């Protein structure tokens, strides 16, 4: 069975570098790549009654937008990279959900970009790369 690598992708330049790096590595070891795109979501966030009534509709729209605007163009671009690529779009806590996707896919490694925020910003807002480095169940490569 082929090795599987998971690359986190949110449309940013940093995440694109992570995807490209994962593709190159996959090419070297004959692995396949799963692109993971996570829509930040907490089941404990507050919604107004109106938002609750419209949530199912909004969710469908958000998923469609992520698929059409981010994932499909990326998969198209990566089509001739010579590496099998698939994608997973999910809701949840970003770092935890990427770990979950890696676990379910039995991936050997996770790739994530870093945006290079200042220390202060990282301390205040946290960072997906740092959280993944701490909680990833498999090897985690942080791509600068």
């Amino acid at each position, binding site marked *: 069975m082929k090795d599987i690598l998971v690359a986190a992708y949110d449309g940013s330049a940093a995440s694109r570098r992570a995807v490209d790096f994962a593709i190159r590595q996959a090419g070297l070891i004959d692995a396949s790549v799963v692109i993971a795109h996570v*829509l930040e*979501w907490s*089941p*404990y*966030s*507050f*919604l*107004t*009654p*109106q*938002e*609750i*009534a*419209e*949530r*199912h*509709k909004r*969710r*469908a729209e*958000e*998923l469609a937008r992520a698929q059409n605007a981010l994932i499909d163009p990326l998969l198209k671009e990566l089509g001739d990279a010579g590496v099998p690529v698939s994608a997973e779009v*999910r*809701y*949840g806590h970003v770092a935890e959900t990427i770990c*979950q996707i890696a676990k379910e896919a039995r991936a050997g490694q996770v790739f994530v970009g870093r945006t290079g925020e200042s220390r202060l910003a990282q301390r205040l807002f946290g960072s997906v790369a740092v959280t993944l480095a701490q909680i990833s169940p498999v090897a985690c490569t942080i791509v600068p």
Partner: protein
Amino acid sequence: MQHSFGSRALSRALALAFALCAAAPAWAQVETLDDTINRIFADSTGWFVSLIFSNFPGTSFPWIVGWLVVAATVFTLYFGFIQFRVLGHSIALVRGDYSDPRDAGEVSHFQALATALSGTVGLGNIAGVAVAVGIGGPGATFWMILAGLLGMASKFTECTLGVKYRNEYEDGTVSGGPMYYLTKGFAERGVPGGRVLAVLFSIFCIFGAFGGGNMFQANQAHQQLAGVFGDYPGWITGVVFAFIVFIVIVGGIKSIARVTEKVVPFMAILYVGTALVIIGMNIGNIGWAFTQIFRGAFTDMGIAGGAVGALIQGFKRAAFSNEAGVGSAAIAHSAVRTKEPVTEGFVSLLEPFIDTVVICTMTALVIIFTGQLVIDPETGRYVVDQGGHIVTATGATGVGLTSAAFASAFSWFPYLLVVAVVLFAFSTMISWSYYGLKAWTYLFGEGKQQELIFKILFCLFVIVGAAANLGPVIDFSDAAIFAMAVVNIIGLYVLMPIVKREVNGYLSRLRSGEIRKFT
């Protein structure tokens, strides 16, 4: 036919609201106009208010409170004390233990509960309880807790039905609530009259939304603010509130609502936490306090009406605070994403528990523990004034009594209480704007234009409520909220066998392991 009736009624309602609103700033100063409006309103609706709030013959017990408590007792017995049997499972559902991770991004049980709670936790928990204990004595606390526990069964019944019979539209949005289960549920059981009850419910719900869910809240928020900043015209508070409500419900600026709603649970936790600290500081009184509560609940402690007076006040407060049986929560809970309607019923029964058994009880205990109620040292009975109120240590009543009780331990607390009351009022208004809207669209049809008309009317009534001291208008809208319960509970009696079938089916699958935790 419905459309032409709708258009006529809409234009009349709009004209009335504009007239009321244009006159609102003037009411603040011109007494005569205010009085005229009061008189006209009292003359035309007084019979309705008297009917809803009238007492059982020969007693001072409002029949509507009896209606709510009897229904809660019937549902408790009919479902075999469901509120106690499934409490652990309810908490597991709220924690998301049974939620499919693939459904992430949909409305969670926690979110539905938090939103519904923000509509019920409000001034009643702070001021209403003080009134109940101030008249009914410590014994009222016992009856309030009992009624809160029974109310959990009513809430469970209505919210299960709310999800089961909601309308799901092609675009993925949902509308639910008593008007839908009254229509569809009655038709399913072959019982006539569902449509009539649904229309009546919707009319009462719209009046309730404009009144208790809007004008009363704006009015009370202004009273609180005026208490801090000194007296100033109410229409100023009204315009500011109306503007904020407008940009949330019409402009779709959810961030303001989110900020408020994030602060509301925090406030509630801070309120309960402070209450616990104060109880802790006076822990030496615990034996005495609980003796007062139990003695007051069953014996005559000198209060108006004796033990029965305590029962009336306690039941009344619980019923008015947690809205169990009123049907409003069924509208809020019906939008949750679940394949099992009964799970939302299980979650919703936590609402009266948190609202009444926890928050209301805290207010009552702080008032009792800090010794606000004056006892005659010779007789051991409470000292009661001519108006039937127990004399308090500071002379304060209502929200002032709660404030004084908390201030006896923390002098800064009254300021926090003002912020809490204003925020609770705002979140209650946002919730009721939605309940009213759903009733409105049920009557006049779904559509952007119908929704906009309702929302603009709602904002105009905010100004009216804050600007004017419209006693009869407020009385009428309170009566409308409880009239909702008359209609809703008739429906719940008819439809409770359907809920029973749902519960039995779900619980047997839970026991057999067919329904399992995901985590």
